[in-house]
């Protein structure tokens, strides 16, 4: 029922709408890097040296917070003209990336943000990253890290630098050497051996000790396992994009773990870094954990009762003698679009990539830095870790780095892909669906999402 007053109000509101239409619609900033898709670019972004003291904000969820603050304090002390304000945020995969996207939208993004490698394309997709290749601090960054990480940080744009690598996270197998010894099980070098070990363990312990924890929270691990098997679920093809999440390699992985679940050797109540998982680590109800190197810190902090019982071995292979691996995670320090201090950001990002893992080692176990200087330094890599009974876990991970398939690519909408995959895996793990079906459904949803964002999408 139109009323005088109401109608006038609605018309008044409608009059504002043309105003909104004329403000730019395309993402937070129409930066030069937005045209990057048209041609590979040289250093289009200016990087003026700052004048005077500069304050920059840094969002991270790296922990523990006290260690990070200590590291940042050291940077601030040694760089008197740059002051970094560090903010502990929700981990990206727990909602932190959504916050960053919203912040970009609102024009209130930080200068420097911690973004995992797989998520960088999504940020570039929304024009959320600043190409800092023109900054002096970035001149030697490319040489400092393995080649494939550099291409991850240029997000497929030769010569661009959107982020500086921090750590590198290849997969390996953590295992309870005491349990393996007790039941005379060989440490598996192949997945076939892994499965027979699991079944033997089930018989020997009457099912009380499971081979691994896995549930819907392990969606990144599963993609990493696909990576190891040689799958390429995400491919940039010409001006379009292809999803291939149900390739034969992916099916092999999916069916393998599906059969392990059916065999009853997987604890599906415990998933990626949740309290139920820590309990299984602590009290010996799980015999292995496939995971990346940052888990070493988690073991030390969350499973103190099992100190000395865990060891690290290379990840099992599909064929004996193979050397193939994938990654699960790993982050970079990215420079965000809209930043007013790219020069200082670059200096900090570069410094942080070099210094962070060394410092963190002192506080929280170990993380494998991506820097070549670190990777090729035996004194650092071969440091014994008392939690792992004197073994040097990083040396195992170091060899795994060489095995990682280097041409893996990530989709420009990984936030949606992973969110959908996690949702769909819930059905797989509660028995109403399968892991393979979860990947197929995810592929269809991801393709529909990317198409609606204007990209030409193919599915295999």
């Amino acid at each position: 029922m139109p009323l005088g007053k109401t109608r006038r109000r609605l018309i008044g509101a409608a009059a504002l709408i043309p105003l909104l239409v004329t403000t730019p619609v395309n993402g937070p900033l129409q930066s030069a890097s937005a045209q990057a898709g048209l041609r590979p670019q040289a250093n289009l972004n200016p990087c003026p040296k700052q004048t005077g003291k500069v304050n920059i904000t840094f969002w991270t969820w790296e922990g523990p917070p006290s260690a990070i603050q200590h590291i940042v304090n050291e940077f601030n002390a040694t760089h008197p003209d740059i002051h970094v304000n560090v903010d502990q945020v929700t981990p990206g995969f727990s909602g932190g990336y959504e916050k960053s996207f919203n912040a970009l939208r609102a024009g209130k993004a930080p200068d420097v943000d911690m973004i995992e490698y797989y998520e960088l394309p999504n940020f570039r997709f929304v024009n959320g990253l600043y190409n800092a290749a023109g900054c002096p601090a970035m001149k030697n960054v490319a040489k400092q890290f393995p080649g494939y990480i550099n291409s991850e940080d240029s997000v497929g744009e030769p010569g661009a630098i959107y982020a500086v690598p921090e750590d590198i996270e290849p997969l390996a197998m953590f295992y309870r050497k005491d349990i393996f010894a007790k039941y005379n099980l060989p440490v598996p070098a192949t997945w076939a051996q892994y499965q027979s070990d699991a079944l033997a363990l089930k018989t020997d312990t009457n099912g009380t000790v499971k081979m691994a924890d896995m549930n819907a929270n392990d969606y990144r691990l599963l993609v990493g396992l696909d990576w190891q098997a040689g799958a390429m679920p995400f491919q940039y093809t010409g001006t379009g994009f292809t999803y291939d999440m149900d390739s034969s390699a992916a099916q092999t992985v999916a069916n393998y773990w599906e059969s392990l679940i059916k065999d009853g050797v997987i604890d599906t109540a415990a998933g990626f870094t949740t309290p139920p998982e820590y309990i299984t680590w602590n009290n010996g109800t799980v015999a292995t954990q496939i995971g990346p190197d940052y888990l070493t810190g988690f073991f030390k902090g969350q499973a103190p009762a099992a100190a000395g019982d865990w060891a690290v071995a290379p990840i099992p292979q599909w064929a004996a003698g193979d050397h193939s691996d994938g990654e699960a995670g790993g982050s970079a320090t990215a420079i965000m679009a809209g930043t007013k201090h790219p020069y200082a950001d670059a200096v900090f990002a570069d410094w942080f990539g070099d210094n962070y893992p060394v410092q963190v080692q002192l506080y929280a176990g170990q993380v494998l830095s991506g820097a070549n200087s670190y990777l090729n330094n035996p004194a650092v890599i071969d440091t014994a870790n008392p939690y792992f009974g004197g073994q040097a876990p990083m040396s195992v991970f170091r060899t795994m780095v060489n095995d990682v398939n280097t041409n893996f690519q990530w989709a420009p909408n990984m936030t949606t892909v992973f969110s959908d995959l996690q949702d769909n895996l819930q059905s797989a793990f509660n028995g109403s669906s399968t892991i393979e079906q979860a990947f197929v459904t995810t592929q269809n949803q991801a393709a529909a999402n990317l198409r609606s964002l204007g990209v030409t999408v193919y599915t295999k």
Partner: protein
Amino acid sequence: MAVAVAPDPARSDAVLTKQTGAPPRPLPDRTGQVAGHVASTFKVTVLMVFAVYFLGPVYCLVIAATKPTNSIYISGALLPYKPQFWTNLSYIVNYGGGIYFRWLLNSAFYAIGGAGIGTLLAGAAGYYLAMFRFRGREGLFLMVIGGMLVPGTALALPLFLLFARLSIAGSYWSVLLPSIVSPFSLFLCRVSADAAVPREMVEAGRIDGASEARIFFSIAVRLMLPGLVTAFLAQFVGIWNNYLLPLVMLISKDTYPVTVGLGTWQGQTTHTDILETLILVGALISVVPLVIAFLFLQRFWRSGLSLGGVKA
């Protein structure tokens, strides 16, 4: 159920007790009835069970908030275990530079500011709608009431996009201003004005030459007070509780209300252990302001609740 027995004033409880040996008879209730023994026990049992249901978790919260962090999940929920409440309290005071108390202040700002201004606006509009008849009155009213069922995302998300375009997303205003509008408050205020403000008084004021505004502020507000306080409290609780709007709108931790702050901590517990304890202590502390608000304003809102209810 027991057969109703009308109380006989001639027979005192003492006499009855001596005679039957049964426990003293319960007092008669509002209907003038007295319950039989079995029915009474049954009733009290049911009431007690629900009291345990409603209060039990709060007790568990208190217990959990006093525990050291690494024993929260391994020491049971019903008994204290190595209580260290003051230590935990000092953790929350110091963590993040006292960010929790900043959150409490923010919540108070949003809730008091939003509900205060909102009640004033709704009070004036509701009073006018009740007292003055004009063409389109019901339409205006229904337009707002119809908004009560519009879900939060339908407003919060577009508001965020809108404010982002205008570059005010993430500011205190971006949460405070939208919180002012409360359809339910308009409803309550109109009903309250209808019920509590006699037309004769308003007419008398007019005859005396007072302006409408003067009549409203000096006469009507006083009469509408229970309704106004109820509206204020309802809106206060709603804003204090609000999670979606500030979650979407706010960027910097300094601007968070307690709800978003605790929710953020909850998402960070895998990486930072101490937060488990801080969340519990913070949850406990956040209950206090609302309890105080309700206790202090009890006199008003108890009568305010009868509005919009029975017209016996």
